[in-house]
């Protein structure tokens, strides 16, 4: 197809490219810097001035973090949590949202108020904790999954997207003898690639980043996700006030241990924890390609 690009459009596009590049540079720099710092000797890092490249290269910081044998288990738990938690929550929430878009649904208005209310009012930590405990969710993998099956926020977004789907599709499906569930599975879900991908990503990030839930509900080490393990590791290394009373002769010898509980170690930890989830995004991007809807319509 021929495109006539006017001068003003060209200028607009150039400006956009420049702005985006600037933003991207500013967003990339802290990560680049973090990687450089994490690959630098801790004591040297304390002198500052590390920008793009490490000054005294070392793998030491990563070695310390990765030597923890629990990390592999933690990683697997995290991955399992992200997959099971995301898939089940997205499915349940999408189903609910689809139901909520049916205008003939009896009680729809009440349901909506019922859901939205919970976005603002909550009983607080203690009652929730006691409830989960009495449900047998303590020290159980399911505590990561079941309480967060329904996300009201995601439901609202799903609903908004579902509403924009052409009504004609459904009618024709109904005529073809499709039940409401059939419409959901065969038409609505397949047409909702971008929104599913988006909400799945947001949910997955939430599951991956959460360290709080396990630190309250999980005591069984085998069930701890990687985030919580790493926080514990870091916390066990920084003992406030305690090191001041160390034998000073040893303290001198121990400069090595002291330096590693430094910025370099923290950064190495940050990289280890965030990399896996960051890498998910590029793989999801293909679901944002235009034309999903139209392509399916034509069939």
């Amino acid at each position, binding site marked *: 197809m021929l495109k006539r690009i006017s001068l003003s459009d060209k200028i607009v596009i150039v400006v956009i490219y420049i702005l985006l590049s600037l933003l991207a540079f500013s967003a990339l720099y802290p990560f680049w810097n973090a990687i450089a710092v994490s690959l630098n000797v801790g*004591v040297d890092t*304390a*002198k*500052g001035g590390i920008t793009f490249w490490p000054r005294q290269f070392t793998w030491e910081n990563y070695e310390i973090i990765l030597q923890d044998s629990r990390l592999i288990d933690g990683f697997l738990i995290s991955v399992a949590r992200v997959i*099971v938690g995301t*898939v*089940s929550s*997205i*499915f349940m929430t999408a189903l609910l949202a689809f139901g909520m878009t049916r205008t003939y649904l009896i009680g729809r208005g009440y349901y909506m108020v019922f859901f939205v209310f919970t976005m603002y009012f909550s009983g607080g*930590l*203690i009652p929730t*904790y*006691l409830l989960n*405990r*009495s449900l*047998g969710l*303590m*020290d159980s993998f*399911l505590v990561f*999954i*079941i309480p967060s099956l329904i996300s009201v926020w995601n439901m609202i977004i799903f609903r908004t997207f579902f509403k924009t789907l052409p009504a004609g599709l459904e009618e024709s499906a109904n005529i073809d003898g499709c039940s409401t569930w059939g419409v959901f*599975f065969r038409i609505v*879900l*397949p047409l909702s*690639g971008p929104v*599913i991908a988006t909400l799945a990503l947001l949910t997955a990030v939430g599951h991956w980043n959460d*360290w*709080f839930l*396990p*630190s*309250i509900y999980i*005591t069984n080490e085998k069930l701890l996700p990687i985030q*919580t393990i790493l*926080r*514990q590791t870091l*916390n*066990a*290394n*920084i*003992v*406030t006030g*305690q*090191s001041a*009373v*160390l*034998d*000073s*002769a*040893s*303290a*001198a*010898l*121990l*400069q090595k241990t*002291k330096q590693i509980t430094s910025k370099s170690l923290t950064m190495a930890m940050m990289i280890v924890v965030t990399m896996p989830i960051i890498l998910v995004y590029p793989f999801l991007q293909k679901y944002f*390609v235009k*034309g*999903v809807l139209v*392509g*399916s319509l034509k069939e």
Partner: protein
Amino acid sequence: MRKMRKPLLVMASLCLVFATLLAGCSKSGDTNKPDPGTAKNEGQQQKNNNTTANNTDGKWVLGEKPLEFSAYAHYNNTDFPKWESTPIGKYLSEEKQVKINMIAAAGAHTQKLSAMMASDELPDMIWTDRDHPDIDRLYQAGKLVPYDDYLDKYPNLKTWMGDLNLLRHDDGKLYRFPNWYSSNPFGNAGYVINKKIYDELGKPKLETTDDLYDYLVKVKEKYGDSIVPFEPHRAQDMQGLGVLYTAFGEGALYTHLSSGLRAVPKDGKLTSILTDPVFREAQKYIAKLYREKLISQDAFNQTEDQVLERVMTGRVAVFAGASPTDFAGEAQAELTKTDPDGGYFMIWPIHKPGLDKNKIYPGTYTSFGWNAAYITTAAKDPEAIFAFLDWYTGPEGMNVQFFGPEGKNWQGFDEEGKPNFTENYDPKEVAEIQSKNNPVMFVGNTSYIDPAKYKYMANLPFEEQDWRTRYQQTITWPTQYNVTEFTGLNPAAESEEGIIQASVDEMFLEIYAKSVMAGSDEEVDKILDQGQKDLVSLGYDRLLEWRTAKWQENLAKMNKK
């Protein structure tokens, strides 16, 4: 476009499969484990211990019977490492049947303990600050185990700590097992000077506040913006600026500024810090330094990293703080690598001209050390836990924690009770043992271990001694002041005084920072006058009254012995 549909369909069907799987999971989970929360396996094991312990009514002796309990560090940024991952834990669990299950909050400590309180599943031992509001809660609820019955049976704490009266709660019972208690002064507060700059400026006299001012001006003139003349560490915690306050009065203490006191004692009464002439003079001096850019302009909004960076690269001329030797010690090693004449040294604390320099105390300490260990009623056999802690804090326990099990690095005791170090003493191994045990030293005994450490240190040539220790004997320790009488002056968080304290603390920091940034001496006075008014309207007077009464009680208790 067709390609797109497949993965989505696969995803959808996966959803279904998972949904059914999940339904199955949750059901089986419910039936198999009716309430796993209460069925802690450690509890059962403890029961076993309990029965065995009760059968013999003799003393608990380490290694005779298995001991297992849970321990929890109630701190935001501190968790105990796994017991077996520390040398002492490995030794004790393998050889002496002592197993400790560490409970970690990973940063959610407030919520974690709240949840444990609400569900009544407390850890057996809690390790936290002496006056922590949560400990007060546990005490009010009767969830703490008093140690009084065990004190004579297991005498190490009593022997080494001495007077325990001030550690007692209102009911006269002892619930706190102090950590790093000491009868001798300790602490590192003071001033560290950049040697290279000092030499280049002709080694001027640095004794009084006037000397210091002149010196800082010279630094500014000579080096301009490349050097920070006076680095007060993080000023929100008052650190180095608080150290300057102590220069203006004999007996003016850093503690006067701290949240736990925030007052100046005068004739047996605690009075407002803001009306104290010494404080006002100090604030005017500090404000002048700040105004003339002699103090780091970022003092109130910098991170530890930024401070460390400046100290490490020798970009500060004078560095003051509650423990400036930590950073300076690390920097010393780095800076002297390239320039043997560089680095830092400590000076005797600065004083205002006319004052007695031997009555200036930049730092303070209490005989109780740092924090405390508490045993809760959740413990099945509190006596055994106490007995263990008592062994842990005694000479044998301390030596094992610091130098490893008897036999390798040390063997037996000398006539003073200090360990005899062997031929095989391996400084490297000892250093590693100490650093790894460090996080699980629950009940450190400074009174015992410091002389023991110095027994070994004394044999070392001066150069091999750590930079930090050189000044402890000569400068820092003699200039730290014992403020044990001012401990325990925090009202309960939910009491009226507690609420007043919270808002006074809030406001004070603001007033303090404002007065440092004031444009003139008059403005300092104005800010402090207004601040005094504001604090009084919050109920500051009432708080002072309450604290005066408590403080007098403390003094009475101390004089009783």
